């Protein structure tokens, strides 16, 4: 199914619409309040964008520095060129350490790779422990948001799902539902052989991975099992802890409107003799999966992305259709750029076009990614590669030719003004327009006044 068909379905899904309406208010307003706490929010955005640009410019150097420092602390760094490589590497790690069960905290990169399926095929039980991801694992659904993966579900749907899957009396309150999830998940943390996490940042100067979470599951996943695997994109590296301090002022505020998340976990190396907890083995999988293709090109600024989700939270298209309509891991404006770039331009023709270019995504982006410009560039690539429909190309050709021939353009405008007015009868509205059902299915077209401005202007001047 294509974007358009899915979006239409989502518009008609009343439960989804309820969930989206609620989420939108929360995300937009809490962020607006949170950024007010920073008097110089714009200066932070500039600083954050420049940190990210600095990293991207010398990505190889920072990655080498990261590998050297991580290795010095006993971690093993793996390089995965493709999504398949990620799955192979993680399955090999699981086999090496005799892993039967893995607990996982949220990782969108692992969604890019469909890692859970690969591990399950290799005989490893995988348990998602982020509450949202856990709900989705029970429901066999993909996330619809990169920060709040289950934002598309209402509380009632979760109550039904828990009752059915946990076979316990139905709970209706959020605290009771959370408690039940905790009780189910706790034994898994204790019995897992491996913990899989993502990483919001990699810190080059210390060789650490950093995750921001609110539920505490991330800390359990990264410290309790004897093996910890952190998977993240190569672009997530940041030079210093000082730089992290800047980025952390923006990430939680932009994402959830928090000054800081409940947990900020920095994982450096393996458990030492003096540590009371921590993994005996720490593997860090650094993923390319299309990222290096962006280096040095027009899409490079997309690599600044710190995955806060503000662009989708503020996108009026996303707000009305939710994340599943976008068809891949990343929804909203950032997904409309990343999906065609990573999964192929021809596989996501609608996405770069599914924007009014209202520009709000670029306004809220904490690292100043010019998302509308990137989407426009993808539209240009579609045109250059002949991927637009012949009808659209023909319409554009006709429009361009007439617009460049003012006499003919003026004559056609005069005719159109009269015909459209005539079609409205005596009224001021057209209820139907041949070939224009995209407009008239949901709206009337206000009729023109009947004569063009330039026609009238010329008359008045006489």
């Amino acid at each position: 199914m294509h974007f358009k068909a899915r979006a239409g379905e989502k518009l008609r899904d009343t439960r989804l619409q309820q969930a989206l309406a609620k989420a939108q208010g929360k995300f937009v307003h809490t962020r607006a309040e949170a950024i007010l706490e920073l008097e110089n929010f714009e200066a932070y955005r500039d600083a954050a964008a420049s940190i990210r640009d600095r990293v991207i410019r010398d990505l190889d150097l920072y990655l080498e520095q990261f590998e050297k420092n991580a290795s010095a602390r006993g971690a093993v760094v793996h390089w995965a060129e493709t999504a398949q490589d990620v799955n192979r590497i993680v399955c090999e790690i699981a086999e090496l350490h005799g892993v039967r069960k893995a607990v996982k905290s949220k990782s969108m990169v692992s969604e890019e790779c469909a890692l859970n399926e690969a591990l399950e095929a290799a005989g490893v039980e995988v348990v998602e422990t982020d509450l949202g991801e856990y709900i989705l694992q029970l429901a066999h659904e993909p996330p619809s948001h990169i920060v709040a993966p289950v934002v598309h579900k209402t509380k009632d749907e979760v109550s039904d799902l828990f009752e059915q899957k946990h076979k316990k009396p139905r709970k209706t309150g959020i605290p009771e539902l959370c408690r039940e999830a905790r009780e189910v998940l706790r034994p898994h943390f204790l019995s897992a052989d491996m913990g899989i996490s993502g990483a919001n940042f990699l810190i080059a100067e210390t060789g650490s991975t950093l995750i921001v979470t609110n539920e505490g599951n991330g800390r359990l996943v990264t410290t309790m099992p004897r093996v910890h695997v952190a998977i993240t994109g190569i672009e997530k590296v940041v030079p210093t802890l000082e730089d992290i301090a800047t980025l952390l002022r923006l990430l939680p505020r932009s994402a959830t409107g928090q000054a800081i998340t409940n947990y900020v976990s920095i994982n450096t190396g393996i458990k030492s003799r003096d540590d009371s907890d921590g993994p005996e083995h720490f593997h860090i999988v650094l993923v390319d999966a299309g990222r290096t293709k962006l280096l040095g090109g027009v899409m490079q600024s997309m690599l600044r992305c710190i995955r806060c989700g503000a662009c989708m939270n503020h996108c009026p298209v996303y707000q009305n259709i939710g994340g599943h309509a976008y068809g891949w891991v990343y929804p909203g404006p950032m997904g409309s750029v990343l999906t065609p770039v990573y999964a192929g331009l021809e596989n996501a023709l609608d996405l770069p076009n599914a924007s009014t270019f209202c520009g709000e995504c670029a306004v809220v982006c904490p690292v100043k990614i010019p998302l509308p410009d990137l989407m426009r560039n993808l539209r240009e690539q579609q045109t250059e590669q002949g991927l637009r429909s012949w009808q659209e190309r023909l319409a554009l050709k006709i429009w361009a030719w007439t617009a460049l021939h003012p006499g003919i353009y003026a004559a056609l405008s005069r005719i159109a003004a009269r015909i459209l007015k005539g079609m409205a009868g005596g009224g001021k509205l057209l209820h139907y327009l041949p070939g224009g059902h995209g407009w008239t299915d949901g709206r009337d077209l206000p009729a023109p006044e009947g004569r063009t401005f330039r026609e009238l202007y010329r008359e008045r001047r006489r």
Partner: protein
Amino acid sequence: MRVGLFVTCLVDLMRPRIGFAALQLLEAAGYEVIVPDAQTCCGQPGYNSGDRSPAKALALKVLREFAGCDYVVAPSGSCAGMIREHYPRLFQDEPQQLEKISELAQRTYELTDFLVNVAKLQNVLGSFHGSITYHDSCSGLRELGVKNQPRQLLAKTPGLQLKEMRDCETCCGFGGTFSVKFGDISTRMADNKCNAIQASGAAAVVLGDLGCMLNIEGRLRRRGDNKTRVLHVAEILAGEEGT
């Protein structure tokens, strides 16, 4: 000083009276206004559909036609934004053209922005007896910073009462060809806008862009609201609509 009125293709075809309202306001502000007769479109449909070449050709056409004007003013944030923000990008690799295009960009203004910040207009011509709510169109707001300018002018309009709606800065769903390509999403966005307009209790929604006007009016009428008026800010300021 000489102002070239960039009428915009939608005003020319659909709402000539808005063009005349703009003309009157500019003349009242003391400018000599010329209207180049061969003007057509700013090129945005091509540019935003991923085809730069017609957009560039049209940019050069606009450059030629408005060469003799000290300022270029459009009753549209979208078209003014195209000229001001996007024309220079079209020629960023052509230094010879870029200089002239950038100069054109810098002397191009959205109507209310021009009236407030350049013309420093003290009094408006019209009056309006009733309440209005203002929709901030995206390009004007985010590309040109048009936010207080129309409100400042509306505040000078006798009889007019402004009732701000919730989410006045949220896109109405027009988006040019988006409104036809993704008609159902666009309609839903227009619906949200209509809800906000109606909840404000204002008798009219006022805005500064034709695309949004047609979209919002089209949806209001389809929903059966034949009462809420949809007016361009120039119509109110020039007094074409009066009471």
